[in-house]
């Protein structure tokens, strides 16, 4: 099951890389970045809350993006934008919208705040990893 999830999240990320016109030679690395992010999230979610898992998964994803950006001599955007999609809280948006429109105000607020927490966690994850200064040699990437 874990292997299947890895493969499917890999394929899903490559699909999004295609939508953003990522150069073909980077597909595999984009897919790998996205799959690692998703697997971190999936494994952690059994132990910790959704925002905490999002934070850790985003940090792993962003770190990997930085490594690939240097190794593959491409802007980090290429890997980060494709890889982030499995972690964007689409489920949270759906749940909030559903509760909101069904007049379940308590649940709407609950899901809304949860979604916001995920967004903040992802933002924090990206910010923490990307704020570490580049080494001189890596600056070109």
């Amino acid at each position, binding site marked *: 099951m874990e292997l299947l999830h890895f493969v499917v999240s890999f394929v899903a990320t490559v699909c999004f890389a295609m*939508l*953003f016109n990522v150069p073909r030679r*980077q597909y595999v690395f984009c897919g790998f970045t996205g799959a690692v992010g998703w697997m971190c999230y999936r494994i952690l979610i059994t132990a910790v809350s959704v925002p905490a898992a999002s934070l850790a998964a985003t940090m792993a994803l962003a770190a990997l993006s930085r490594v690939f950006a240097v190794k593959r001599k*491409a802007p980090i955007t290429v890997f980060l*934008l494709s890889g982030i999609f499995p972690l964007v809280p689409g489920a949270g*948006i759906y749940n909030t919208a*559903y509760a909101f429109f069904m007049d379940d105000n308590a649940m709407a607020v609950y899901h809304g705040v949860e979604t916001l927490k995920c967004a903040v966690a992802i*933002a924090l994850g990206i910010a923490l990893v990307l704020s570490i200064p580049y080494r001189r040699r890596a600056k070109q990437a």
Partner: protein
Amino acid sequence: MTSAEGSAPPARADSRQVLDLCIRTGDLLLRNGGEIFRVQETMSRIAAAFGARSFQVYVLTNGLFACVEEDGVPHSAQVRMVPLSPVNLDRVCEINELSREIAAGKHTIEEAYARLEAIERMPAMQPWLQVLASAAGSGCFGFLFGGGPYDAFVSLIAGGLAWVFVLLAGHWRLSKLLTNIAASALVAVVCLLGARMGPAFGGQIDRMIIGAIVPLLPGVPFTNGIRDYINSDYLSGTIRLIDALLIAGCIAIGVGFVLKMYSYL
């Protein structure tokens, strides 16, 4: 004296040319998903490589301002509006490569122009391939978010149709807000039909919809907004984050409206 007068106009034309190249590079980079910091740095690097002295540039999410000064007097300036548009990372990569080559002194300004124009003409992915990618991506996410095979299949159909609509909406010049509301409403309708048709397969409507809205999610403005914030480009970051928030709101409205209507049936 005559030689000094004679040499002044070509020098001026030259720095104007450099400025023009910088603005066009910056425009292309910004349009296709480069973050503010990258755009500013690339433009400055190109200007420096072609010997433009005292080059000033200010970039916003949707606009560029640049000028070249000589002896403290600005003698050539450009302002350009850059509308928000779809991301094309292939172009961002190529411009990145080009700017490095220019910085290494590998190109004359004419060659740089030619390369830039070639990058500008690089085709985006074929529409049918985009639809296929959107469909396959949605199907995968339908599965990843806990749906069964049938749910993933409905997500796949809905995600593909949503992208067909997004492409058509671009063709019709529909506003971005309306496009997102209508596309997510379409996703909800398709998923409702899918769930109604296949109760024998155990359809989970929420998994289908969550999978199929992924191509519409504002992952790009969200991520780029955060990156602008990291580089202290707060104004640009705010524009992007508001863009992300509005898109998320539109998706919520589109999906929620359809589900509400369905609950009355």
